[in-house]
């Protein structure tokens, strides 16, 4: 009993003394806004990776296609989005290309750009996943009378799926951090919220420290999830 009251008194006095520090007060005051920003970051990342997986699956298969045209198309797409900085892609698409196609809003643009970018990385993950499946599997499936696409669907992809889970989670983590670049086009994600507080309070250590900590919590949670999935999917 004494212990509990003792530690409570200590905790409250500790928080009280922390509240004397201007930077700490600012961080506490803006924490709800940071949390909303973190939610936007997660939303954009999740939606982009989901769309990116569809894009990546097709582009990855395209990279393995025998048709020169499809192979070329997939290669151009993957090379462009992997070979140019995401920051440049954001500015190019948001201000340059998407306005020609539709009246682009910030949120939808953010998701389109991030999905296109992450699709290119996922395509390489898919391609290497498929290629990692033993060659004999395809030959065996074909000898059972399946055609190429049937063998792909029922034999190769289910096995590749297992192989690509860990790198997919890595891609998710990488994109989550990269969404911070969207602050340039005023997407209200975590970094832009930090930007706004920093621009008015000039407390870099506290504001960016808090923002970094929130990112760390999110990426750590994801990597723990990834480790768990890896263990569950292990066959040997």
């Amino acid at each position, binding site marked *: 009993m004494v212990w509990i009251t003792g530690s409570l008194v200590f905790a409250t006095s500790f928080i009280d003394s922390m509240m004397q520090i201007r930077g700490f007060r600012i961080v506490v005051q803006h924490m709800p806004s940071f949390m909303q920003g973190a939610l936007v970051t997660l939303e954009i990342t999740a939606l982009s990776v989901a769309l990116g997986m569809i894009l990546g699956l097709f582009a990855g298969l395209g990279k393995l296609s025998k048709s020169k045209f499809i192979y070329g198309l997939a290669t151009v797409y993957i090379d462009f989005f992997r070979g140019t900085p995401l920051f440049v892609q954001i500015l190019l698409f948001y201000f340059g290309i998407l306005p020609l196609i539709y009246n682009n809003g910030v949120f939808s643009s953010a998701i389109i750009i991030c999905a296109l970018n992450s699709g290119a990385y996922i395509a390489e993950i898919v391609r290497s996943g498929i290629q990692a499946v033993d060659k004999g599997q395809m030959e065996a499936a074909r000898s059972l009378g399946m055609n190429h696409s049937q063998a792909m669907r029922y034999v190769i992809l289910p096995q590749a799926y297992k192989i690509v889970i860990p790198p997919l989670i890595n891609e998710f983590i990488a994109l989550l951090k990269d969404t911070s670049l969207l602050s340039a086009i005023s997407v209200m994600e975590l970094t832009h919220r930090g930007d706004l507080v920093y621009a*008015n309070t000039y407390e870099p250590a506290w504001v960016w420290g808090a923002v970094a900590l929130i990112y760390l919590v999110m990426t750590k949670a994801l990597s723990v999830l990834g480790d768990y999935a890896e263990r569950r999917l292990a066959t040997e």
Partner: protein
Amino acid sequence: MKRYIKLLLVGALTLALVVSVVGCGNSTPGGQSEKPKLVVGTNATFPPFESQENNELVGFDMELIRAIGEAEGYDVQVKHMDFKSLVPAVKTGKIDAAIAGMSITEERLESVAFTDAYFNAGLVVAVRDDNQDIKGPNDLKGKKLAAQTGTIGAGYCDKVAKKDSSTQVRTYDDVAQAFMELEKGGVDAVVNDHPVTLNYILTTEKARVKTVGDVFSANDKYGIAVAKDNQKLLQDLNDGLKKVKADGTYDQIYAKWIDQ
């Protein structure tokens, strides 16, 4: 054979890299001038006050700070950085001073000191040329507004948004992006310093932007930011400012950049 060629190529590239890096070092000989160095930060995306032309920082502020440096015997070096980072950079001593069309505000005075005001700017509302709806600063409620992050224009937008929660505010690292967003139709109005908005309209080909209503917030005065504990520099800059105003240099710079 092929291998040797590859090795040779890699070697040649490495050599080229090393030479170019060393070359850079050699091309900036130090210790030529005896004058004390004055490192000044700016954000060169704000013409006519500061912008980049042919790899050089030019504009009203740039000529003014060089003239003040000349008058007070400083070797002025200007550095470009993010606008919102200028005050923290002065505060932590990363730069000696900041001149960036920066208004003297109470929030900034909490972190840094300012010289005497050297320019009286004021804000203005800009809309797309086909907009008939917004006629001035009183029509901004419930609209989508854009400004540069950390400017008093952004502060004004936030004030409007606080009174009316249906108002949306978007901020960008430089004001050109805010104008791009306006022309694209992503926002209804940009709130920004009057001379800069005017310069954008005058110098941008096919600018689809017009200003509406009067210049407001007339107490929007620019100062040069200096660390609070650097009283000597503050004194020198104020003296220099007085000198360039007295000898007509200030008027020349004003005529060149502002009275276009």
